[in-house]
């Protein structure tokens, strides 16, 4: 049974890491989490990104965030990726599996997964 006391240990482990995390050149993964997104399955997509970014060791540079309705509800779940100096990339009709693939190929490998992009679906 987990107790709150474990948080004190997590705090000790993380104290030094937090300082490194702030201020680095950042990639932002933005998941649409309005009614349209949630209904279409955005929750598992978001959590797949959160988990996979951590598993692939990208948590220091990639920030996963949520937003409201982007305005293209018929393409939900929609995920936008913002990277310094690059054009915004929009993935549509996402699933948790596609999210894992995007983390591996795009966020880690540097090449967007063309077949899930908004222009190609």
């Amino acid at each position, binding site marked *: *049974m987990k107790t709150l006391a474990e948080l004190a240990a997590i*705090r000790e482990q993380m*104290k030094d890491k937090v300082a490194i995390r702030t201020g680095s050149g950042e990639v932002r993964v933005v998941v649409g*989490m309005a*009614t*349209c997104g949630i*209904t279409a399955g955005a929750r598992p997509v978001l*959590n797949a990104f*959160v988990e996979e*970014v951590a598993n692939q060791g990208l948590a220091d540079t990639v920030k996963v965030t949520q937003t409201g309705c982007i305005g293209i509800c018929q393409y939900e779940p929609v995920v936008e990726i913002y990277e310094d100096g690059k054009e915004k990339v929009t993935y549509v009709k996402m699933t948790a599996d596609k999210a894992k693939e995007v983390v591996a190929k795009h966020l880690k490998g540097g090449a967007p997964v063309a077949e899930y992009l908004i222009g190609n679906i």
Partner: protein
Amino acid sequence: MTDLSLYILDITMNSVRAGAKNISVTLEEEKGLLTFKVTDNGCGMTADQVEKLSNPFFTTRTTRKVGLGIPFLRMLAEQTGGGVDIASRSEKEYADHGTTVTATFHSDHIDFVPLGDLVETIITLIQGSPDVDFLYRHISDKGVDVRMDTAEMRAILGDDIPLNSFEVLSFIRGFLEDQYAQK
């Protein structure tokens, strides 16, 4: 939406978007009646806005012309023989502003949906709003007794470790799952 946990995520997101700093989400199950209540100290709504709220063609957003969150919740509640009540005090009129949405469901009704993954919903809320204090409580007459207060966690973690760092989210997931496994 296929399960109640998604409705809860959607409705609680309204509190987040209302700028609330404190949001309480409670689920109580007793004798086949499930009550879901979310209370926030966000900007609130005027009586006029509350009245329009169940009309799907009313929304304050600008990206689309329909707002389906509350109508969806109301439809689900009413088709099980329950209902939705919304009480709100707008910041324009009250110093102690905020909104309370209460939905009741007859959980033994054939048109009710499964509860779904409530832990995932809470994790998603904290991930998106690490600075909001969420109080979550789920009790049932079948032995569920789950309680989580992010303010308590924040007090232990301090201000420099965000609640949505992966390590903390993983802890909270386990913390909730353990409590659900106790029943």
